[in-house]
């Protein structure tokens, strides 16, 4: 009872105080109030920001003549921050499938708690820290080509995302050299046979209690030996859930799984160099009829040069992708026009080939996959 009386007294005081303040504010002229509001907004501890990117484009495969406006993508990124304590970031990717249906993909949604100068804790679904492309170069205004290198798109050799927890940050300088790290633990990936018969590593973390397998541990360590350069090595170790045990379709088997990655980026003057290698290794199945294990590997090297005066940027990229069933090679030439640093028109021609066993005969056959692409991309 005493508590209640005290409480209502405080309440009364604050009502009086706020009405006094309100009278003072309304006596002020409108302009001052606006300035005050802006100042309050600037200084608020928490807030939202919308960032992201979008791209629209056309592609035509030479031998198939399937020319169409098929590169439509809109990826809003939502940030919520509370002071320097927490930052939430979430990206949703909208794209249009061949049949016109809208496809929605949650690229990432993760909370980052800043623990100290050198460490933050990431929880949720985050981009795979293995290598660089998936995490840092895939947004269309960042990627200097209209598409991903072979093996670095969804369902290739490169890993997409993880569901789990990560510790990451910059480390204290050693001999004046900056370096940074990520270590993570996440749910296991799955191995599936796609409707077209291709074996896919579903390198997006699932939430299915690791499908009865163990969690995956991984990380990346990188140094910046000189300005504009970063050299990184990354790896992961765990089990992968095989959902296709053919002798017993209901049984999920855990198979050995490890990943290795190496990457290099160097931006010097108007030159931009990028290269990356990634491999995922899957152990053999205990099931004699199970899917063959093996190595999924992909690599690319890219060089670009910005001609400031003309706002032009020629790009050259070479890449390969190999898994137990298929082999792809590609050399791509591109030319970009920069309306501004974040609004870019791209044109590219890709010379490629793909070798895989023929569906009927089982004999390895190679087809050409030469392709023309054009795209307008921007980041906001």
């Amino acid at each position: 009872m005493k508590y209640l009386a005290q409480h209502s007294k405080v309440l009364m005081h604050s009502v009086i105080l706020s009405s006094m303040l309100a009278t003072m504010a309304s006596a002020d002229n409108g302009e001052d109030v606006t300035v005050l509001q802006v100042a309050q907004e600037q200084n608020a501890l928490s807030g939202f920001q919308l960032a992201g990117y979008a791209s629209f484009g056309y592609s035509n495969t030479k031998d198939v003549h399937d020319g169409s406006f098929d590169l439509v993508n809109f990826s809003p990124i939502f940030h919520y921050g509370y002071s320097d304590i927490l930052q939430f970031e979430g990206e949703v990717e909208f794209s249009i499938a061949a049949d016109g249906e809208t496809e929605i993909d949650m690229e990432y949604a993760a909370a980052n708690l800043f623990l100290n100068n050198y460490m933050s804790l990431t929880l949720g679904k985050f981009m795979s820290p293995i290598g660089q492309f998936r995490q840092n170069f895939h947004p269309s205004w960042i990627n200097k080509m209209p598409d991903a290198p072979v093996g670095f798109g969804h369902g290739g050799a490169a890993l997409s995302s993880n569901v789990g927890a990560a510790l990451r940050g910059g480390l204290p300088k050693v001999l004046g050299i900056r370096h940074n790290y990520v270590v993570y633990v996440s749910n296991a990936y799955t191995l599936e046979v796609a409707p077209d018969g291709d074996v896919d590593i579903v390198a997006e973390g699932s939430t299915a209690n690791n499908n009865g397998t163990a969690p995956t541990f991984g990380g990346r360590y990188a140094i910046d030996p000189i300005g504009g350069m970063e050299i990184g090595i990354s790896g992961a170790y765990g089990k992968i859930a095989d959902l296709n045990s053919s002798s017993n379709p209901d049984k999920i088997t855990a198979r050995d799984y490890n990943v290795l990655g190496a990457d290099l980026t160097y931006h010097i003057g108007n030159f931009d160099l990028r290269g990356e290698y990634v491999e995922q290794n899957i152990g053999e199945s205990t099931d004699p009829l199970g899917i063959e294990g093996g190595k999924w590997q992909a690599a690319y090297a890219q060089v670009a040069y910005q001609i400031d005066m003309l706002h032009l940027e020629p790009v050259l990229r070479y890449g390969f992708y190999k898994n137990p069933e298929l082999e792809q090679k590609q050399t791509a030439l591109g030319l970009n026009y920069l309306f501004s640093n974040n609004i870019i028109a791209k044109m590219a021609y890709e010379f490629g080939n793909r070798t895989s066993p023929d569906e009927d005969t089982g004999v390895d056959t190679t087809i050409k996959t030469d392709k023309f692409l054009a795209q307008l991309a921007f980041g906001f």
Partner: protein
Amino acid sequence: MKTLLKTTLITLVFCLNTLHAEENKADVMNGAQVWTDVCMRCHNLRQPADLSTRAWKFSMNHMRIRAGLTADETRDIQAFILQSKSTVDGTQ
């Protein structure tokens, strides 16, 4: 094994906390240096005038995670960007 992992983690966080003497003054010169070293590596430079002061605060925390920066480096770069912003385009 699990307890060992937990203890190591907690000790690590604690050590890193004490290692970093709290100092809150932004070093704009250092910010300029790290900005030139880091901010062109992954993507074309985003000019200070591109974003509002408020948006820079969120994007810098975002880049702290992406680019593996320390909190001090993030603060210094932000101070440098906001200083260039107010001198170049007169906005705050």
